[in-house]
């Protein structure tokens, strides 16, 4: 028996020492709200390890785990029974596999009640930073929208820390593309003096449709004034997130850049914008020396014209038959101008 216990201890300690590269699911607000019986904004205090928990099954592995408890003083209830003080218990693997426990401070906490006790509703996304300041505007009626509103308030608040705001940005893909998000990010931008952080927020604003930031972003890229990280981020948001035809004039300077990566991002944006207004610029870029710029121009024209037999093409198809596609769209332009 003693030998078995020693073997278990050795196996456990080896497991504890292992490094991790694990996939985790993305944050989905509706799923989290539905899985929680109780959602509160609370002061989280007295987080403590209270002992060993039963091992946690993770994939094919049984992970050694610890049991934790924490005290919550509820300040606002977003879903479920209105309570004052709550004691929460939860188990976490000894090593990090993406699961997160509670953190001290004002937090929005998602709980589920099992066997008369409150536990974390989700192992990955159980709590986010929160603020006790009054809501930015009218509170929505849907709980998931209230949750998102609270997350935006953290971004806008002058009292929350940069790391708390960054914790919200870690799930930026789940934030809504609307005026509230833009307003919250603008407030943060006003208060930010760190260059890297300012670039990050500017890029987020472009991502969420704030065209007023685009000229500054374009200027930083055109004049090569962005940091290395900022440049990568700006190129990402331009090529993937700009979809508004009103952005076309602001993108124009990038189309003449000497850097083909910048031109590619700008033409990819024109493709995604999918507007007849972009046709003259796309036609001009059919003559670009860079094949990827030509490819995105062809994709843009194909989506706008929507001609049967000329949709797409894929990169491989274009690479193999580039002259056919370029000739077709040049001909299409001639016919269009007559």
């Amino acid at each position, binding site marked *: 028996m003693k030998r078995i216990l020693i073997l278990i201890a050795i196996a456990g300690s080896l497991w*504890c020492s292992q*490094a991790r590269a694990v*996939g985790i699911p*993305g944050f989905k607000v509706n799923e989290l709200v539905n899985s929680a019986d109780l959602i509160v904004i609370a002061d989280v205090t007295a987080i403590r390890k209270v002992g060993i928990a039963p091992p946690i099954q993770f994939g094919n592995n049984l992970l050694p785990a610890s049991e934790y408890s924490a005290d919550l003083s509820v300040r606002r209830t977003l879903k479920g029974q209105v309570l004052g003080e709550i004691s929460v218990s939860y188990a976490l693997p000894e090593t*990090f596999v993406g699961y997160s426990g509670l953190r001290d401070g004002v937090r929005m906490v998602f709980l589920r009640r099992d066997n008369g006790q409150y536990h974390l509703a989700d192992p990955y996304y159980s709590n986010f930073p929160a603020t006790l300041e009054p809501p930015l505007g009218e509170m929505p009626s849907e709980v998931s929208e209230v949750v998102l509103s609270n997350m935006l308030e953290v971004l806008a608040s002058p009292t929350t820390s940069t790391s708390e705001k*960054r914790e919200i940005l870690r799930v930026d893909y789940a934030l809504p593309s609307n005026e509230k998000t833009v307003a919250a990010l603008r407030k943060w931008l006003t208060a930010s003096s760190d260059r890297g952080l300012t670039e990050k927020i500017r890029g987020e604003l472009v991502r969420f449709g704030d065209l007023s930031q685009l000229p500054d972003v374009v200027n930083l890229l055109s004049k090569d004034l962005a940091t290395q990280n900022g440049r990568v981020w700006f190129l990402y*948001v331009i090529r993937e997130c700009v979809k508004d035809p009103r952005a076309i004039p602001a993108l124009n300077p990038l189309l003449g850049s000497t850097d083909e990566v910048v031109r590619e991002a700008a033409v990819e944006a024109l493709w995604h914008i999918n507007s007849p207004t972009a046709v003259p610029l796309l036609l001009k870029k059919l003559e670009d020396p860079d094949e990827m710029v030509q490819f995105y121009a062809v994709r843009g024209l194909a989506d706008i014209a929507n001609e049967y037999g000329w949709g797409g093409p*894929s990169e491989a198809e274009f690479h193999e038959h580039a002259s056919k596609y370029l000739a077709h769209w040049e001909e299409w332009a001639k016919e269009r101008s007559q």
Partner: protein
Amino acid sequence: VNLSASTGAQITVTSTGQHFSAQNNDISITATSNGMSPAPFTLTAKTPWKLLAVSNPNNDTNCNPSPQSYFTQLQYNLIDNLNITMTTDITWNEVVAPAVCENGSNWCHFGLVTGPGRTNPVIDNLSPPTLNQNPSPMLTCTGSHLGTIRYRSASQTISVGTATAGSGVVVQTDYLGYYGDHGQHDSKQSPVQPPQ
């Protein structure tokens, strides 16, 4: 594809092609009745191709309480064979080769465990050995990712479409790089072409 005849009877159309689309709407179905053929009904056959990194600054490094240390979260969008971000949630998996110690570290002596995730976005979390195992050199977590010396690496192949390691469509190969204060995917390679 299920169609209905004029009598309401079901007709099943079976594909005989074995290729994914090279153009949008390059698969067509034409229903002919009494010699009349209306405009064809068109389809596009899509397949996952490659990952697109959601930029460096979004590669978020955070600190966990001791004995854990940093974790770095790497985000990607999944791109299909026609260069469009796939918005459907798909399972992904990874195959990781045995790790190599680098620059005098002992980090490769601690095993490396992996696990699948879901796309939209793809999120891979990298975390190093725990502090109570005395990794050498010792780790520091500042929340930044400034370290330039890699102490451990392992080749990684990411595939999508299933949680079974090694199955599905390969969308990226890289090296898991563990540095003193952060992790990252090094030497990333995407398939040159999507599955044909």
